[in-house]
């Protein structure tokens, strides 16, 4: 399993061309989110974490600007693996609480899709090389 550090997140943020002066504080906000995922047993690798970090940068911007994302229809939410939704809920709840906002189910769904897609890809790659 990938235990993400503060430095890892800064590295991802630099790859995403986030302004350098913002990276330490942003990494500090994201670290508990990633630790929650790790403790919940997520399956992530470098590529998945970079993609998730890209998503999280936009999510944090939405929280700070109080922008509400277009709601995801129930029929789509129902297709997302329950384990991934539960994990995403655990990961995001502290972030939303710190912002003084209720957890947005659609935001949970979008992060859950990252988790589910990463797990599916990593499992498929493991199977392909005969592990």
């Amino acid at each position, binding site marked *: 399993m990938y235990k993400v550090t503060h430095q890892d997140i800064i590295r991802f943020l630099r790859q995403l061309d986030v302004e350098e002066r913002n990276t330490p504080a942003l990494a500090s906000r994201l670290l508990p989110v990633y630790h929650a995922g790790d403790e919940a047993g997520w399956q992530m690798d470098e590529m998945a974490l970079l993609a998730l970090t*890209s*998503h999280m*940068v*936009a*999510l944090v911007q939405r929280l700070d600007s109080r922008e509400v994302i277009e709601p995801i229809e129930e029929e789509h939410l129902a297709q997302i693996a329950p384990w991934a939704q539960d994990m995403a809920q655990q990961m995001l709840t502290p972030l939303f609480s710190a912002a003084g906002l209720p957890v947005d189910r659609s935001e949970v769904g979008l992060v859950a899709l*990252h988790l589910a897609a990463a797990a599916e890809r990593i499992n498929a790659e493991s199977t392909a090389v005969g592990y």
Partner: protein
Amino acid sequence: MEKQIKVVIGHRLGKGQKVAKGIEDAGGVVVVIPGMAADMKLGDVMHQEQADIGLSFCGSGGAGAVTAGTKYGYKQESHLRSVDAGIAALRRGARVLGFGFLDTEELGSRIVNEFRKLQSEGKA
């Protein structure tokens, strides 16, 4: 015969059909990746299809665009919030564009038309 412009669409929720229609109306060829989290497969399908352009749609489109750029070296821009922003990114040389949830025919047709213009100018 002029080679048709090929665009791959990867939408987090498996949508993108309106953009696809716009692409086809403008004379382009489109591949819409089916299923949820399709944006995460954008780079793979672009590579497989030898596509000219990839469009990623999610909260910011960044994840799909970044993955495509990291894995295959496509020049990408994300966090694009309007059609005009996408056109500007295309003019700057980006070939993978990451948007929010912007499923419109206008996006599809303008992207194809702009790319065709860039080709005629020798810039694509």
